[in-house]
């Protein structure tokens, strides 16, 4: 178990490092110049050269990478060009907001999608289930920026019961959470339905029914218990993806999270900030994935992590 954990941690660190290195190269290959973004209107070529020298951007890519790695091992991710503060600290300030939004969205998803999926599986192929099915397809098809704008129009403008943007009260959490969760609820409920239909058709359900187990226990304890792994995996993967920044929704709602930060960092070609964001979000995603894997043997006794490849 310890060996498994060490190996997984090693893999995680490698994953984050490779992601970070790839992004390091890619942002410098992409068109756009941080110096032009920083210099203000009508800069002279001397101005630009001075700025490039100041941030070490006049060096070769290899030298820049070497300096980046050296600083990384001392815990220094560079100074954000636009915030004039350590890039790592700028990102860390934003992380709690993204975690709050993601956690709220995934909790809402689980609370709605699991009962909905179970309900659909119990009534598979009936007329009422068809209605739910159509709803989930609609939920899958609506773009999140559109849902966000619609919710804003209704609940912040027409009937102003909730704040339109920012996170100053807990009410501000409602609209972004719902916006993020719509797609996830649609996807996860369909997954739950599929898994439950398969589980409910298993021989052990028939045999349990033969010994007088109630339909309720068959559904929630037996069938759902046996569907837990794929459902939890999907929820975890979605959560990890949200931690990378729920970009569109954060921008629509002015949410001060990592997603809106990354947009600003990209606009200004703020290389250290981009790199710090990638490091933090990739580490979070990998951590969540690791936690899910560690939960497997609790959900299915047949999984023994020590033997996993």
């Amino acid at each position, binding site marked *: 178990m310890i060996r498994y954990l060490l190996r997984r941690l090693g893999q995680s660190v490698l994953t984050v490092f490779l992601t970070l290195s790839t992004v390091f190269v890619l942002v410098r290959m992409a068109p756009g110049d941080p110096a032009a973004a920083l210099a203000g209107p009508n800069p002279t070529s001397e101005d630009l050269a001075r700025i490039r020298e100041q941030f070490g951007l006049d060096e070769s890519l290899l030298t820049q990478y070497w300096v980046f790695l050296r600083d990384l091992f001392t815990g220094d991710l560079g100074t954000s060009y636009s915030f004039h503060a350590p890039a790592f600290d700028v990102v860390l300030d934003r992380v709690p907001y993204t975690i709050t939004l993601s956690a709220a969205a995934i909790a809402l998803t689980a609370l709605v999608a699991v009962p909905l999926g179970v309900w659909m599986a119990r009534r598979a192929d009936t007329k009422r289930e068809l209605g739910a099915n159509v709803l989930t397809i609609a939920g899958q098809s609506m773009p999140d920026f559109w849902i966000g704008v619609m919710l804003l129009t209704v609940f912040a403008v027409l009937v102003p019961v909730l704040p339109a943007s920012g996170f100053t009260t807990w009410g501000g959490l409602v609209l972004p959470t719902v916006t993020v969760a719509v797609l996830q609820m649609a996807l996860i409920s369909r997954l739950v339905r599929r898994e439950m239909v398969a589980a409910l058709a298993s021989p052990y359900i028939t*045999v349990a029914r*033969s010994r007088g187990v109630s339909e309720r226990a068959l559904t929630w*304890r037996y069938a759902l218990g046996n569907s837990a792994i794929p459902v939890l995996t999907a929820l975890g993967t979605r959560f990890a993806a949200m931690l990378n920044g729920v970009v569109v929704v954060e921008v629509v709602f002015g949410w001060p999270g990592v997603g809106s930060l990354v947009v600003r960092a990209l606009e200004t070609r703020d290389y250290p900030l981009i790199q710090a964001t990638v490091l933090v979000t990739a580490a979070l995603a990998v951590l969540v994935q690791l936690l899910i894997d560690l939960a497997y043997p609790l959900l299915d*006794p*047949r999984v023994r992590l020590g033997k996993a490849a």
Partner: protein
Amino acid sequence: MSRPSETAPLLEVEDLQIELITERGVVRAVDGVGFTIAPGETVTLIGESGSGKSTTAMGLLRLLPEGLAVLSGTARVLGRDIIADPKAIRRIRGRGVSLIPQDPMTALSPVHTIGHQLGEALRLRHPGLSRADARARGIELLGRVRIPHPETRWSAYPHQFSGGMLQRVLIAIALAAEPELLVADEPTSALDVTVQAGVLDLLMELQERTGIGILMITHDLGVARLVSDRIHVMRGGRFVESGPVERIVDHPADPYTRGLLAAVPTLGPWDETTRPAAPATAHRETL
């Protein structure tokens, strides 16, 4: 093993028909069969795959998918008409009638312990039973079906047992219902021949001690000969021949029964060198 016929039968079936709604249309899987089982009796339905024998058993327990199986005729299980009142079976499943399933490897929930599933069966039979008492009684039951070290096996999961041991666990779970009628749906066909004998032995011993009636479903004439009082040979949803085990085996009247007998090289399930060959080797029937 037969008892005097004045005792009320545990199972009375008359002109039972079961129609299954499949993608290719309606199939009459069981076409007008009738038989009875008295306490202490073992009645066997034998036939090849698709003959309707498992469908009969599952239909009588109302375990066929609702809406996809239509039952008609008369069937009384422990005196309750399960065709006129489809919900009646719910009151006796696990409380008087039990099932021993076909394939023990898939018959238990893989994510719940043996103790959870056996304890649950005990507590369904005796709603007032505490967890600790259910555990004590369950461990005793596991011992009765000769599971070694039942105290430690209580918290083990199904994948930690062999097929033969799992079938013993399933028999223990079936016994938790304190059944009067036991439906054994090919209880040994997924097991090795050597293990089969032990499981059948156990069933016979339990029957002698408790006087339960058994409905045995099998494709194996060796099994049928060993355990049955009466045999009904089934083909295409009908009984082609019925009678006491000796007469069916020694003097088969129907050509199909003779064919079944001829297909078995040597009778007797303890012959380890041969297994009954086709057509009797048909495997699991789909429910």
